[in-house]
């Protein structure tokens, strides 16, 4: 399968890339890891006139800690998250997520920022970033601006990025002590999109009750879903078995799945119930210092 012809640009700096986006307009598409874009171009689902390959821009391939945040640059690959010690120790939910995205060969190319910028509700990082309360940094002609992840996914394959902006960084606040998170995904086989996926991040108070909760759902709606009712339900509660089960039911009621090749809507809703309860139990164990 061969994509339609396009004109290729390979800017060396971020400024150059933004200027190209301004000049070429909406017929231009950014290429980073390319693991979603290139297959779509080969199937001719998209046929951009211009490709702006940002892979030659130096200094964007970082996963680093500063100012109380984990910072993930535009060209950091999934493989880097998977093998990062600070991710493994401080953000087990992120390590959970990176490990179940596509397969190792795809992850050696695919970027974390691209996983968000693609705006696909079937992608895995959106739910996790919603649970973690991440912020994305967009760089455009007027400089940088921050966008809360909860405002980033207005519709199917749509993000809050302006056409002339590039998602250049993800910022995730370090979880306070007594925090834990987990991401669980059911897939039919390695490399498949989620039948359903659930991300949970919690922090406990001194009495052991849930102080804050973030819950994100993958591939059970037109956009990644922030399960706000489930989050509100959890806050202030001791996470006993009955509460965990009820949280699962609340999350299921917040999902909006559709029948497709991966299963019926009813099946997926029930999957959200089960995965939410399991993710919550694992998050709780991790918040208490377990694995």
């Amino acid at each position, binding site marked *: *399968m*061969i*994509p*339609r*012809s*396009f*004109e*290729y640009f*390979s800017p060396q700096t971020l400024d150059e890339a933004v200027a190209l986006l301004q000049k070429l307009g909406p017929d231009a598409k950014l*290429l980073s890891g*390319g*693991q979603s874009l*290139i*297959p779509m171009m*080969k199937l001719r689902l998209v046929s951009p006139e211009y*490709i702006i*390959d940002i*892979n030659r821009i130096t200094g964007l391939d970082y996963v680093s800690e500063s100012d109380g945040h984990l910072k993930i640059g535009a060209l950091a690959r999934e*493989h880097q998250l998977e093998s990062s010690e600070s991710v493994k120790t401080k953000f087990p939910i992120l390590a959970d997520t990176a490990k179940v995205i*596509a*397969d*190792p*060969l*795809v992850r*050696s*190319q695919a970027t974390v920022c691209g996983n968000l910028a693609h705006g696909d509700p079937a992608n895995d990082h959106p739910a996790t970033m919603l649970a973690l309360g991440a912020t994305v940094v967009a760089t455009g002609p007027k400089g940088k601006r921050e966008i809360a992840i909860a405002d980033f996914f207005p519709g199917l394959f749509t993000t809050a990025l302006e056409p002339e902006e590039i998602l250049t960084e993800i910022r995730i606040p370090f979880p306070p002590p007594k925090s834990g998170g987990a991401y669980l995904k059911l897939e039919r086989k*390695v*490399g498949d999109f989620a039948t359903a996926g659930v991300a949970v991040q919690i922090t406990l108070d001194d009495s052991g009750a849930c102080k804050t909760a973030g819950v994100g759902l993958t591939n059970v709606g037109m956009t990644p879903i922030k399960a706000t009712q489930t989050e509100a339900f959890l806050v202030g509660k001791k996470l006993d078995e009955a509460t965990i089960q009820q949280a699962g039911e609340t999350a299921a009621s917040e999902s909006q799945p559709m029948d497709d090749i991966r299963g019926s809507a009813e099946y997926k809703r029930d999957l959200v119930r089960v995965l939410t309860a399991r993710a919550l139990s694992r998050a709780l164990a991790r918040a208490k210092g377990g694995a």
Partner: protein
Amino acid sequence: MTTIKVKVNGVEHSADIEPRMLLVHFIRETLRLTGTHIGCDTSHCGACTVVMDGRALKSCTAFAVQADGRSITTVEGLEQDGKLHPLQDGFFQEHGLQCGYCTPGMLMTGLAFLSENNNPTDDEIRHAISGNLCRCTGYVNIVKAYQHAAQKMREGGA
């Protein structure tokens, strides 16, 4: 047309290509290195895996123009001076192939993986090859072949 310069198996190549040319087509049709296979052509099977600047990737899911200035190893680059690479020897000794179609991809994934971890568990190997499909389902011997190669590499075979 765009001119690219790519080092493949240690040899510099220069070619005028269309930007839409996929890396796998450049390798097979422009360079005539047909050891790299096209399987599914949809980023699933891994038959087209090559190693670029140390990282294994599916060459059906990259444009050749992205390889400009980079260094690529294909299955043809494994053997050195008539001597099989430990991975090739492993696949030979442990019967790590039946039809052989997935083998170039399995070998190239192994090259990048074992250079990062030359003392893997069987489980780690199975995860590493989860993007490479063998429809003969000969995975057990492929895992053994990786272990054979890993041991040889630990002993300084490559």
